[in-house]
């Protein structure tokens, strides 16, 4: 567990801001103690300082995971969020997309969302805005980026993709080995 470098911190917060905007603040200033981001084997973990201290008893090799894993830095210093970040992204998300029940399963298999699968969408979302994807009964299914802005979505024909798939909870099954 080590602190993120300046550069990586910047990347991380930029990325976070894409999905939850100003709510990043809430991840940092929490009423229930200090939370911090730490890096371990290129993965970013978000964890309470209290727990972090306890984890220092373990050697670098033996520790597997502390708190919640947000994502992984690539060799080129790009951050890719894992589905595990959804736990914090979903409640703070500013822009949301709801998929129809008929498309739920499709989305969980990693497909982009076409207009036909779109149930609802937050107003005023611009193109390439990071969004969290929900099912119609408000179950967070994953996250992605809008391919079209909200206004464009309304006029788009049914087969055009309106939201690019980035990550979905199906990955817990599909990609368990590569995720952790």
């Amino acid at each position, binding site marked *: 567990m080590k602190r993120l470098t300046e550069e990586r911190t910047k990347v991380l917060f930029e990325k976070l801001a894409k999905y939850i905007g100003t709510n990043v603040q809430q991840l940092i200033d929490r009423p229930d103690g200090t939370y911090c981001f730490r890096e371990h084997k290129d993965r970013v973990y978000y964890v309470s300082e209290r727990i972090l201290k306890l984890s220092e008893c373990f050697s670098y090799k*033996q520790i*597997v995971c502390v708190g919640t894993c947000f994502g992984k830095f690539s060799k080129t210093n790009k951050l890719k969020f894992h589905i595990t970040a959804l736990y914090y992204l979903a409640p703070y998300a500013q822009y949301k997309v709801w998929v129809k029940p008929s498309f739920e399963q499709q989305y969980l298999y990693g497909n982009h969302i076409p207009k036909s699968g779109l149930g609802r969408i937050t107003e005023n979302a611009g193109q390439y805005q990071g969004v969290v994807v929900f099912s119609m009964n408000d179950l967070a299914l994953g996250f992605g980026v809008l391919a079209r802005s909200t206004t464009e979505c309304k006029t788009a024909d049914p087969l055009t993709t309106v939201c690019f798939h980035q990550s979905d909870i199906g990955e*817990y*099954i599909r990609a368990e080995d590569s995720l952790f």
Partner: protein
Amino acid sequence: MGRKAEYSEKQKKGPGRKARKQGPPTFPKKSFAPLEEEDKKLTHRQKQRMVKREQKKVVQKAKLKEKRAQQPQQRKQKKYNSDSEPEEEEKATQQAESSDEEVPQLVPIKKQKSNGVAQKKQQQPKKPVSDEEPEDDEDEDESDEELEEDSDDQEELDGEEEETEDLYEDDMEEEVSDDDDEAQVGKLDDLFADDDEDDEEAASEDDASSDDEDEDGSDDDDDENDDKLPIEQANKKLKKRLAKEAKEADEEMQMTVDQSEVFQLPEPGEELDAEMSLQDVQQRIKDITQVLTDFAKYRQEGRSRSEYVDQLRRDLCLYYSYNEFLMEKLMDIFKLSDLLEYLEASEVARPLTIRTNSLKTRRRDLAGALINRGVNLDPLGKWTNVGLVIFNSTVPLGATPEYLAGHYMIQGASSMLPVIALAPQENERVLDMCSAPGGKGSHIAAVMKNTGVLFANDSNRDRIKAVVANFHRLGIVNAIVSCEDATKFRNIMTGFDRVLLDAPCTGTGVVSKDPSVKTTKSEIDVQRCYNLQRKLLLTAIDCVDAKSSTGGYIVYSTCSVLPEENEWVVDYALKKRNVKLVPLGIDFGEPGFTKFRQHRYHPSLNLSKRFYPHTNNMDGFYVAKLKKFSNTIPITKEEQEADEKQLDDAIAADEPESNKATDNEEEKVEVEGTEGEPDAPRKLLGKRAGKPILTDVEQDLKKKKLEQSKTKYVAKVFEKPVKVPKKPKPENPAAQENATNGKKSEKQSKNVEQTEKSAKGPKKTKAENSTPAVQESTTNGKKSEKQSKKPVNEDKSSKPAAQQATPNGKKSEKQSKQSPQQAESKNNGQSPNKKAPPQKPASKLSEKLAKAKRVDVDDVPLLEGKPIKKQNNLKNKSKQIGQLKKSKPNAGKKQKFKK
């Protein structure tokens, strides 16, 4: 798919769901009463009917004879009656009238009879009236016959009905037998018999129980009506016959009972098993079970109980495909009736259960969501508020969006028990020592509501991934997941409020999940498990802080039913640490054993709980809850403690690979020692200290002293000699291993080779023999690490390869047993003096060895140089183990003697 846990609860009925729910499982109760199969085959009613059928035939015959005899008389009467006859055949009412005319006495009754429904209603009260009775009898008989003949056809029924009328008339009115015949053939397709008649029939059938009364009633007629005599006679005959038949039946029954009573145990020599079908085996199991329930009564003369038990065990092994070892254990654990139930229940899969993740949803919401997806479910039981049992499902439960969103976890019902027993509180520091795949760990976190800290540890790096995935999926953010060796956890962190130890075990309780357990587990597996479990439990206890304001609890659980892995382990911990057993807070399950065969466990062990598939409908499980009341370690000699733990550790760690091998080696050595070189083992021991100039006697004495001092405390550590069962037959384990693990056997064989070589070593000229052997061992890699270590100490100069291997070998080093010693000792003696060529092919070597001239061990000079202290320590330990193994029986005796 699954079945309910609670049998008492009634199945709910409702639209859409639960329509196809299975009823609660019923397990056949094995009755030990003599089997009354004959009785079972026929119901009471059926038997009655059968008897009547017989009766009827006789009556008819009698009647026919009677009629023929009386024909002349009848002729007259027939003329007299002739008018009425066709009428009867046309309509029931008419018939009634005609009969009225014919037989004045019977008029009223006749009417009732033929009036169908009305008559039926009156039938019961009328019974005492004698005249009607024969009629009824016949009706019943007739209808029975009809049933028997499967004549469903309405017309035929009618015809037969009429026949009964005719018959009746034959007797009563002395009609011509021709009519009778006609009727019997059922040619008369009169339409007179309406529904009423049928009803009557049914009614008469229902009345079957009142037959006897009827017959009695008919006796009264004798005086009044002579015509009835033939019937009466027939009746009497019938009664006789009936009695006879009943008697016969009884005899037959007795016969069958006798047969089972005289169940013949197959002779030990004969091999019938090949020809036996499973049914036969099952029958034999039943028979033997019966014999064993009342042995004095059913036994065969001259056969002992153990013979029966052995046969039963073999049969059970065959029938349920267990191996003998496990079946023997199970037979020790369960009493006979329970055993069969347990075995049966183990064949059936347990219901699929899920645990609601209370961090993300509520059980009711989840149930609703799943029902919408086409899942049939129900709450699991009153003891849990998060469990749901799944009956069937149209979707895969491991891939629903709810599952992926972490709303539930698929988890056996038994897996929730340890956490319920642990009862973690908020803001505690809890450790789950063997957590993969994270089911119980996530349950703990959920109970703690994501407060406090949860340490989830598992030593398996592959399985730890599942823990991380599950924790993230279930939204657990207060967890630290580590991949440490759990037995070393006390070195990393202590002071936990609660520790859950769901120890790795043989899995004998989850046979229904993994049937391979039935055949693959052996004594050695159990040994390995419980050594590790003891070690883990001690570590778990050490990790807990007794002064914790809220906690200080340890929960120990396994999915095994063997007492060796459960009560015995806990009992061991009770002796070694300041802990006591406390109630689990679970109100079902069987109390743990306080005694098992020759073992007597601490009486408080009845506070722990056992769960069985046949009683609780969950996997076989054991849970014990311990409270640590003091952080001090009760054992006075701390160093000994440490030592014994090291030993324990070594056994646990090395058993999978090297223990067996070394064990075998040791035996080999023993064998060799007894054969060719009686002094060899002793020699080795003597050499260890590096004190060369002792006489044999002195050495002997020293050795014995050492042995005594060590074995004494060793015997305390291991209540059961670790390797005892293997001693008598040294070849066996090797064979086993060969079968189970190719690699192991390889290593083993290599080891053996080495020992052989090293044993022969001294016979050779000192030059080349032993060093190459050692080198081989070192090059062979890990398996010979223990050996490699020693060479390092002795011939550092000669073998760099050996030195390289040593760092890895440290752990298993302690374990090293005699053969390495032997080899080493030879090194001690020879290798430093003469530096052999570093590499020699093994085959050549062995050839040389074979050719070599024999030299007695005693003649070989010992190493005089002073041994390094470290090495001495190590050797000490290894020697301890070696001695422990060799002298265990002796040690036991000595101890007893001393006491």
